[in-house]
């Protein structure tokens, strides 16, 4: 082993990895630092590492009505769509996982193929439809549209999660006189809970980050946070860099809260594969 340590190839490999790790987070850290800077400290030809921090940018962002409305819209639209995804997606996934029929393969492919649809191809007709029924630029329209995303993603990820529940436990419950529904409620759901939470968190991140559909389906009332953030950059020539950086930080925080859950989910997926 000692011989390996001495080899320059190994050192270079470690340096490349360290550089990649640095590149993964540094741009984000830099953005967070810029959010705490006054504009004069950002617009410098030599990047400033030492500066007097200010909370003005963050205060400005949190005091803007448009940002607060965007935050509210994002939370309501994503939260409701994820709830609908849970209520409709989990039972369907369980049925596919545990009651295989000859359509099971086709159903899985259909659910996956929804991901092939280019978002523009869905957004243009939906805009016309929502305009005609008078729901354009409202949260219900956005929630219904996002539900397509959340149901299919939760279903796709929950099928393997339910398949990972040991069959013996469910069989034992049947023998104990449980009905099919109570096996789902009392056995399958709690046992698969960890993986299911990962799947749900993933679907939340996906719709929270969604941009194109929200951009096309809202004009003023139903704008979500990504749309509001993207508009802040278009305020003429005098770009308020600090404010923009603060809005990027605000927008990025919720998905990052799920970092732990999602990396645990990833690990559990591969542990299942191992067995």
């Amino acid at each position, binding site marked *: 082993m000692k011989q390996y340590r001495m080899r320059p190839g190994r050192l270079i490999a470690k340096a490349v990895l360290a550089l990649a790790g640095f590149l993964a987070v540094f741009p984000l850290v*830099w953005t967070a630092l810029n959010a705490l800077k006054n504009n004069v400290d950002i617009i410098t030809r030599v990047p400033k590492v030492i500066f007097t921090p200010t909370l003005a940018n963050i205060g400005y962002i949190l005091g803007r009505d448009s940002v607060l409305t965007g935050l509210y819209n994002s939370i309501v639209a994503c939260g409701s769509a994820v709830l609908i995804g849970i209520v409709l997606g989990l039972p369907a996934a369980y049925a596919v996982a545990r009651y295989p029929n000859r359509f099971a393969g086709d159903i899985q492919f259909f659910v996956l193929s929804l991901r092939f649809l280019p978002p523009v191809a869905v957004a243009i007709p939906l805009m016309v439809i929502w305009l005609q029924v008078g729901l354009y630029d409202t949260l219900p329209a956005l929630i219904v549209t996002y539900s397509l995303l959340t149901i299919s993603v939760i279903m796709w990820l929950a099928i393997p999660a339910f398949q990972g529940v040991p069959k013996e436990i469910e069989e034992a419950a049947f023998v104990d006189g449980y009905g099919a529904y109570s096996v789902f409620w009392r056995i399958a759901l709690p046992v698969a809970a960890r993986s299911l939470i990962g799947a749900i968190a993933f679907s939340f991140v996906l719709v929270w980050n969604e941009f194109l559909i929200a951009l096309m389906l809202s004009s003023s009332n139903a704008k979500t946070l990504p749309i509001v953030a*993207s508009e802040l*950059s278009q305020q003429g020539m005098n770009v308020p860099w600090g404010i923009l950086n603060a809005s990027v930080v605000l927008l990025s925080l919720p998905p990052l809260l799920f970092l732990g859950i999602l990396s645990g989910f990833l690990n559990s997926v591969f542990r299942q594969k191992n067995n």
Partner: protein
Amino acid sequence: MRRRSSLPATFLVPTLAILLVLSMVPTLYAIVIALQNRELSTPGYSWVWFSNFADLFTDRRFLNAVWVSVKWEIVTVVATMVVAIGLGVLMFEVASSRMRNVYCLLFIIPVLLPRVSAAFVWKFAYHPLYGIATYPYRLITGGLIFDPLSKPGTALFAVASVDVWQWGLFFAVIVLKLLETLPPQPIEAARLDHAKRWQIHAYVTLPMLKAPLISLMFVKMIESLRSFDLIYVMTRGGPGVATETLDMYAFSQGFIESGKVSYASAMAVLMMIATVITFTMLWKRVQA
């Protein structure tokens, strides 16, 4: 006992019915709109059948957008796979198990970011005067200006680098996890035969992982279709039309420049047909 339950029907039918309605209504309606001549500014419309499609094939900007989209797919998919396999193998070779966990956590962060955020982060970083990514160039050249996002030759690659930053690092984690699932015996055997480290991976481990790596590439191909957010924030399709992909052009035709919803929809329908056919065929092949 399981067989006779009503559970599969009650659990599946409502969900599938809703998914079918939510996906088929917009899909069919997209085709209907593409056969008409709707515009955002005027309420009336009539049926023009295939003339939107005929116009597309003589529209040089559309043909450019097709070419840009193809370039985007190739550049992002290839670069992502190269970065992912490279870093995955490096982690497998030289990182201790504790460092692997640290890297895995770090490498997942970029892909979790909203693409709008990622795009802004790098748009600042690439700023010719104040950007952190262009700073080394200013330092070395003594203050020369390099503006990757506004040069036609580099803009696409600059935007693609953000996509690879998000997906390449994330896939590196998956490649590592895949390598960890391999049985150790073949690697040991190759080592006993005095195979070099890179030879072990080139001839033993990566061929063993061919199927999952192809699936991974398939996922990336689908995700690369969602380039709109990055391009919209970073370049808006510019400079000129150098980064104008199909969804960007459809969006600007339908909403920014002329409000020709039907024309945009015709473009979207062509994209939809192309992707559904391509990916269905690829998927059947991956599964077979």
